[in-house]
């Protein structure tokens, strides 16, 4: 049996990358508590030469002290005292490693259900997700939950990583059964591209190097896949969205060195998507007035053109009243200006949702008051069944809701734009971030 030819499994060879790989890839690792996430990360760091001598000495000494036969790689990442006491990962830890091809930012997320909010947190900024499954246990409730969450949060690339293959004697039937079950589940979500890789984090097989002895698998090692998969950088080609973050007003000699004393205004912000060139016409929202770009720079360095993700300063050729929270947008394809939004939210707080409570929506650089107009349904992430008209939400619940806004927001669907399609809810009393939302 040649697993790599399975219809849902993609090797880099049969997918033509749309863009050259970017120099930075953000990914998350998710799985159940004992699937060996920390071990996998430790293995990735070690095999790429990213574990320093003093770190290695420290974890080697601790492993020996505990009478372990080999190094416990989880000691490298399980940072908090409480975690080491309980032997589990309880928060998102960010890790960094580089190869000659790429710099990687890993969000290491916990598997415990009560900390799913941290998984959502890390997933929101990730380009790729590694879903870790124990070969002996197969797909679990937690795997389905995590697969659904990565889908909800719009992660483009999913890698099903079947770990502990050494403990099932590298049996291809075990791997195939897990791949089939997973493919069926994510197929319901409309996802058809999943890379599946059989590994042993403990021995390192198929992690950084291909395991030559496994003849039935001819796909890439995990590291090779991470190094070559295209990162999500297609935001350049989407319509312009530049939320105004700050209005800089030069007056009364408050300019930086080299800035003249003539009064002028300009707008600071990060391009959520699209490109912006000198002379381009933009629509200023919500007013709808139009102007042309007369100056463009990153701080003191003038630019002929700005791209998605760049933090820029823009001047316009007309005096228009513009404030923080307004948006410069593509005049042909502007965002929707709305006073109600339909969204899927993940409730993150311990305090339950108050249906009559007032919340703050922070969306791009704009924060407005909001009320729940409707709780449409709660989604069971294990079965994808919908429970109609719930009367509240508890931590980790996923709900379809309708929110009524006091002032308009400038939105796109999350599927089209991860920045202008996402928001958080803040409780104005506790000041906590209580929910994360993606706009339908």
């Amino acid at each position, binding site marked *: 049996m040649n697993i790599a030819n399975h219809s849902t499994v993609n090797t880099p060879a049969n997918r033509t990358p749309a863009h050259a790989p*970017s*120099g930075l890839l953000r990914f998350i690792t998710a799985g159940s508590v004992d699937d060996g996430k920390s071990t996998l990360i430790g293995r990735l760091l*070690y095999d*790429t030469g990213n574990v*320093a*001598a*003093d*770190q*290695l000495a*420290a974890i*080697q000494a601790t*492993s020996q002290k505990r009478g372990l036969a080999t190094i416990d790689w989880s000691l490298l*990442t*399980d*940072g*908090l005292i*409480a975690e080491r006491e309980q032997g589990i990962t309880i*928060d*998102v830890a*960010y*890790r*960094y490693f*580089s*190869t*000659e091809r790429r710099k990687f*930012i890993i969000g290491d997320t916990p598997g415990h259900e009560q900390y799913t*909010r941290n998984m*959502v*947190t890390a997933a929101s900024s990730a380009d790729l997700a590694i879903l870790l499954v124990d070969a002996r246990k197969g797909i679990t409730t937690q795997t389905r939950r995590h697969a659904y969450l990565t889908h909800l949060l719009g992660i483009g690339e999913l890698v099903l990583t079947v770990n502990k293959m050494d403990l099932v004697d590298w049996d291809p039937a075990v791997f195939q059964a897990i791949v089939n079950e997973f493919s069926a589940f994510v197929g319901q979500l409309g996802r058809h591209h999943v890379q599946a890789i059989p590994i042993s984090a403990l021995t390192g097989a198929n992690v950084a190097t291909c395991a030559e002895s496994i003849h039935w698998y001819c796909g890439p090692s995990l590291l090779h896949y991470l190094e070559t998969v295209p990162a999500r950088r297609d935001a350049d080609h989407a319509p312009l969205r530049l939320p105004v*973050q*700050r209005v*800089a*007003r*030069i007056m009364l000699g*408050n*300019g*930086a*060195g080299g*800035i003249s004393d003539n009064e002028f205004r300009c707008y*600071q912000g*990060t391009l959520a998507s699209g490109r912006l060139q000198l002379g381009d016409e933009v629509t200023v929202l919500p007013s709808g007035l139009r102007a042309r770009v007369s100056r463009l*720079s*990153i*701080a*003191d360095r003038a630019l002929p053109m700005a791209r998605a*993700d*760049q*933090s820029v*300063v823009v001047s316009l050729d007309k005096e228009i009243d513009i404030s*923080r929270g307004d948006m410069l947008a593509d005049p042909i394809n502007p965002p929707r200006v709305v006073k109600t939004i339909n969204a899927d939210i993940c409730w993150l707080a311990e305090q339950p949702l108050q249906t009559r409570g007032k919340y703050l929506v*922070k*969306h791009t*650089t704009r924060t407005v008051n909001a009320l729940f107009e409707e709780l449409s349904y709660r989604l069971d992430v294990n079965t994808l069944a919908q429970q109609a008209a719930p009367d509240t939400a508890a931590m980790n619940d996923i709900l379809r809701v309708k929110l009524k806004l006091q002032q308009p927001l400038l939105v796109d669907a999350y599927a089209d734009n991860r*920045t202008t399609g*996402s*928001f*958080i809810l*803040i409780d104005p009393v506790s*000041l906590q*971030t209580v929910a994360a939302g993606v706009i339908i």
Partner: protein
Amino acid sequence: MNWQVNTAFNPSHVATDHLDLLEAEALFILREVIAECRNPVLLFSGGKDSAVLLHLAYKAFHPERIGCALLHIDTGHNYDEVIAYRDRMAERYDCQLHVRSVEDSIRKGSVRLRHALESRNPYQSVTLMEAIAEFGFDACLGGARRDEEKARAKERIVSVRDEFGQWEPKHQRPELWSLYNTRVALGDHLRVFPISNWTELDVWQYIQREDVELPALYFAHPRQVVRRGDILVPVTHLTPAQAGDTVETISCRFRTVGDISCTAPVASTASNVADIITETAQCLLTERGATRLDDRASDAAMEQRKKEGYF
């Protein structure tokens, strides 16, 4: 068990286009804090990370000049070059500089040392909290990075501290996309780390690209040291040679610059940023492991100090 350090990878070959993304992220974070907080302050120690942060603040505000004050918590045990550099930078960027010293806290009685030569580094948190209360700062911008230490790897970019400066790792706010919740109750404040996602190598590559000025201590210079285990202890009035010590003069540089009593140099001949990048890329000891005397106390030393309000 016999694991060797894996030297297969040479990070000096890594491309630098990721610096553009890291810079853009830092500018965004800085502008969010400047726009949403009432009275933010930038913590400036004269170390390389805070030098990069100051440079980023210049870029975040531009064309306005930096619109927030700088705060330095002076242990009284800093190298003179660093203090001179601090003052020069504040003047160059036309920033108001507040200096509050651990010495004053000792005089007031809010800091009590066990003995006169005890390291004052852990007590900076007391003086910092006093300065926050005195000026009413609601956000402190700092140059801490997540790659420095295991506990820092779990800190949010925007992190809430209560009036005791306490960090509650189990009750951190979830931080999604680039939507930072900067709201704090009266008496609480934020610690904000715009270069959280940078590594030591990123910092040096950025210093090279942007030509950021640093104190001379970061570059190789001759210095008298004593070897204690694998650490080089500089011979100073605070850390004098003990009877039986062998004092050597070697070429060395500092990888971090902090309180004299707890910052050690590393042997090096790297006299410019390019040489330091090569050395950093090849260096097999982590930054804090090689040079910080205070993190060696225990494996969980940093988390404990963070909970107590340390930066």
